[in-house]
């Protein structure tokens, strides 16, 4: 049986891992290579590296780091941040990324998903969506969750999957940083309309939040989190033991 994936997300700025709470107030955590290796050794099923650098120098540094990561860590790597063109896909895939996550780039150019899926295959294209409740609806936000695009999140995700997105990362702005559990309501609304894997993001504060996620919504394939892993509040090896004890299919690493 396919296992539920646990995915730490590493936001990288100028070569260092950072994590914001509600996308504001970034604080330095650690080296991407060291932290990535630590997670991989402790049972992470996949790593997401998010490049939040704006400058071109920073971007070059990021791809150097990505190469180092890909030659040290042998689990699937997803890369996002600043992906606006097929050349951006090419740039990170050549450095060892397996999947590429698009967010604002797809909002600016909806053909990006279609073109990338045609060239690299659906399995390579991840649509990442930051969504928030506005007037009782789920709305897509851009620019790190600061700008309301006016797009309906459910419609946007359906369209992305039709265009060839092979996986959805749904980040709820409403629960992000609150550490009181994933946004089950929003996730359910999405799993009901798509047939591709859905990765839950935003809100995990403790091991029980992951158990609740997978027990309540069996259609969710993976749980993603950042700070609770970075600050050692949840150890991935402990999390996986608890998932296993609760009958949730999981990959346990042998000692």
């Amino acid at each position, binding site marked *: 049986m396919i296992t539920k994936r646990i995915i730490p997300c590493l936001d990288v700025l100028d070569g260092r891992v950072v994590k914001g709470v509600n996308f504001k107030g970034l604080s330095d955590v650690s080296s991407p290579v060291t932290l990535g290796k630590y997670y991989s050794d402790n049972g992470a099923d996949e790593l997401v590296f998010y490049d939040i650098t704006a400058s071109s120098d920073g971007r070059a540094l990021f791809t150097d780091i990505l190469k180092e990561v890909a030659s040290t860590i042998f689990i699937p790597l997803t890369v996002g941040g600043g992906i606006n063109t097929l050349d951006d896909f090419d740039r990170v895939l050549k450095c*060892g990324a397996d999947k590429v996550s698009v967010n604002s780039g797809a909002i600016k150019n909806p053909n990006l998903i279609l073109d990338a899926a045609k060239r690299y295959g659906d399995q390579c294209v991840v649509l990442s969506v930051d969504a928030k409740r506005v007037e009782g609806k789920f709305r897509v936000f851009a620019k790190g969750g600061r700008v309301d695009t006016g797009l309906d999140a459910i419609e946007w995700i359906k369209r992305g999957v039709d265009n060839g997105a092979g996986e959805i990362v749904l980040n709820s702005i409403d629960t992000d940083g609150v550490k009181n559990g994933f946004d089950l309501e929003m996730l359910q609304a999405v799993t009901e309309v798509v047939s591709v894997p859905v990765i839950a993001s935003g809100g995990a504060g403790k091991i029980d939040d992951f158990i609740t996620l997978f027990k309540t919504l069996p259609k969710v394939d993976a749980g993603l989190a950042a700070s609770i892993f970075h600050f050692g509040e949840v150890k991935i090896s402990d999390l996986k033991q608890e998932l296993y004890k609760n009958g949730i299919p999981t990959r346990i690493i042998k000692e």
Partner: protein
Amino acid sequence: MVVIVDYGVGNLYSLKSSFSAIGVEVVTTGDKSVIEKADKIILPGVGAFRDAIEKLKATGLDKVVVERAKAGVPLLGICLGMQLLFDKSFEYGEYDGLGLIKGEIRPIGSVIPKELKIPHIGWNALTLSKPKSEIFKYLSDGDCVYFVHSYYGANCNEFVTATTEYGANLTASVQSGNVYGCQFHPEKSGSVGLSILKAFCEL
């Protein structure tokens, strides 16, 4: 010398790095004369079967790979590279493969329940055939490896060395003499995957 056959399909960065990580020197090349001298050959591949087999044939590398395999050089096909070893594939049509493994490549959608997602993506457990294939000498039943595929090896029972359960028992790996194939990605399967590559290099 271990050679990764480069015929212009997919990105070989991680695969190359995974051999460095186990301390094995590899050469990535599309040069026939280098492949002819290899002690071990890796046939990678991602994407569609037709594209890949056409590229292999256009470069003439199909003949070298088959000839070296028949001469007894250990050959490992990975993912689409495994599928290319088969007699034929029914991915978007019907295409001949290299004919090193008897059987054919068919869509997983024809054997798994409708509610399961396609492609089969993620970590799944292996059930190893007995006796264990030499390349699995460091593995135990239930070890997880990373899959990304929509097609699988069918009608190849006598060559199956491991299966994985995804609504049906799907072929995870095959072996016929010195010819090996893994549907999953050892280079993305953590320490379990690296131990498979290590065992292959130790053949």
